[in-house]
């Protein structure tokens, strides 16, 4: 990276933090209002007007500041925009991670903003909308929670591990059979426990802070993990595919 680029991505990250705060405040207000809820791929894959509004807010703000940059956003993607990562500076956005929680006022909802250049994730910003916690990381510069450095757990023994996961939106018996089979194997390790909070980005942040040892999921999208992947790696953790192979950002 040139020094200009280094400076530029730093500036981008500062803007990401500002917009995450702003978007987070919009979510905090919206959670108190009545919500118009519809569904996407399944009856349990929820979306609200707030998801779309917050994504528009983030993208329009960023586009104004960085007109040459590209955007991958959950709601834009749902509306038909292509989800292709090029070499161009690209923002990867989940405006409300934990929409189901948002609908229920279940207090685990986050704004997630990742950023990649030349297909390499450069920084991640995640804002916990209910308690205002900010998780940030820039490649090569460490990971932080509200400005305090964070580190993954040092535990290596699966029988002393706390594992996090999410069920996802599929409810067909075959998928749930596999889902519960996987969880059963982990509980039989015997892992200390399995937790589900309904927000993959916040669950991933718990890995980065060392509050849990691992997270796994099928059915994630790139916008769910882009920011968190940087945060986990910079906290000393690793991100891999469930097959054990290197993780491919958009491979679910």
């Amino acid at each position, binding site marked *: 990276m040139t020094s200009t680029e280094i400076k530029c991505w730093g500036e981008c990250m500062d803007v990401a933090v500002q917009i995450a705060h702003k978007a987070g405040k919009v979510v905090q207000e919206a959670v108190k209002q009545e919500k118009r809820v519809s569904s996407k791929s399944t009856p349990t894959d929820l979306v609200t007007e707030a998801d779309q509004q917050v994504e528009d807010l983030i993208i329009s703000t960023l586009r104004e500041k960085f007109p040459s940059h590209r955007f991958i956003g959950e709601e834009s993607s749902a509306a038909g925009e292509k989800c292709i990562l090029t070499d161009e500076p690209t923002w990867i956005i989940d405006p409300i991670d934990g929409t189901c929680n948002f609908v229920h006022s279940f207090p685990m909802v986050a704004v997630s903003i990742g950023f990649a250049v030349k297909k390499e994730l450069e920084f991640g910003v995640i804002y916990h909308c209910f308690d205002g916690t900010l998780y940030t990381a820039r490649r090569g510069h460490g990971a932080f929670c509200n400005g305090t450095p964070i580190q993954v757990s040092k535990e290596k023994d699966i029988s002393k591990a706390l594992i996090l996961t999410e*069920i996802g939106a599929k409810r067909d018996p075959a998928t749930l059979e596999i889902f519960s089979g996987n969880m059963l194997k982990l509980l039989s390790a015997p892992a*200390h*426990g399995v937790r589900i909070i*309904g927000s993959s980005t916040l669950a991933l942040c718990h890995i980065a*802070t060392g509050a849990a040892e691992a997270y796994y999921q099928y059915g994630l999208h790139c916008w769910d993990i882009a920011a968190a992947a940087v945060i986990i790696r910079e906290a000393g953790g690793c991100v891999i595919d469930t097959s054990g192979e290197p993780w491919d950002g958009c491979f679910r």
Partner: protein
Amino acid sequence: MPDLWQEAMDHAVVLARKSGEIVREALQNEMKVMCKSSSVDLVTKTDQKVEQLIIASVKDKFPTHSFIGEESVAAGQPCILSDNPTWIVDPVDGTTNFVHGYPFIAISIGFAADKQLEFGVVYSCLEDKMYTARKGKGAFCNGQPLQVSDQTDINQSIIATEFGSNRDPEVVDKIFSSMRKVLCLPIHGMRGAGTAATNMCLVAAGSAEAYYEIGIHCWDIAAGAVIVSEAGGVLMDVGGGPLDMMSRRVVAANNKTIAQRLIKEIEAYPATRDDAPIDSKE
């Protein structure tokens, strides 16, 4: 007419807050983790220290009161609820979470007199959320009133449950079978904070429609039961009858409609009652 138990409740809040400070401090230090009934049923010195603090303080202020505490029972004290004013305490609900620094850790203080639950205090100490409820006077979190969700359609619900610490394959099989059946209804989602008290407070706050579990103990649910009830919710047994605090089973829901629909999917399995004679316990 003065409230007979208000002073006790005020003291419970003070104790819960003080205990929360001890827990937060303990998280900064290395901790020794021990096991109780299995390798995943954890206990630490902090659990014991907090319970001792609460017992000593209660004995001092209310010398005639009785006490049921998780660690005292683990040490061999009987777990019998009499008519006497009784404190029912889980000093650290979510010990596994505590061991990991996972952010849901609660001090749970319930209180019964004449075998009726009178008040409940649950302090989620990392979130700094003090949940309180006095019978007949509503439920609150940090002074803000709590109200359960008004959802009546189970397909629009979030249900909380836990996998517990029993790894007996037959038990685990039932737990997962129930989970799949509930998920397939379908419901919006399933959640598990890792502490019964917190799960119940989430129901009271309207964030989840219901919580169910088999394998919990009376000290896990005594306080939460008052909080859910005072927030407008219902407590039931997984078989559909009234809640039996010593039965090791609980359903806490926003209303009877959701509770009764949920109960149809729960596969029960035996669990030794909390008030069973000591030599019959696992």
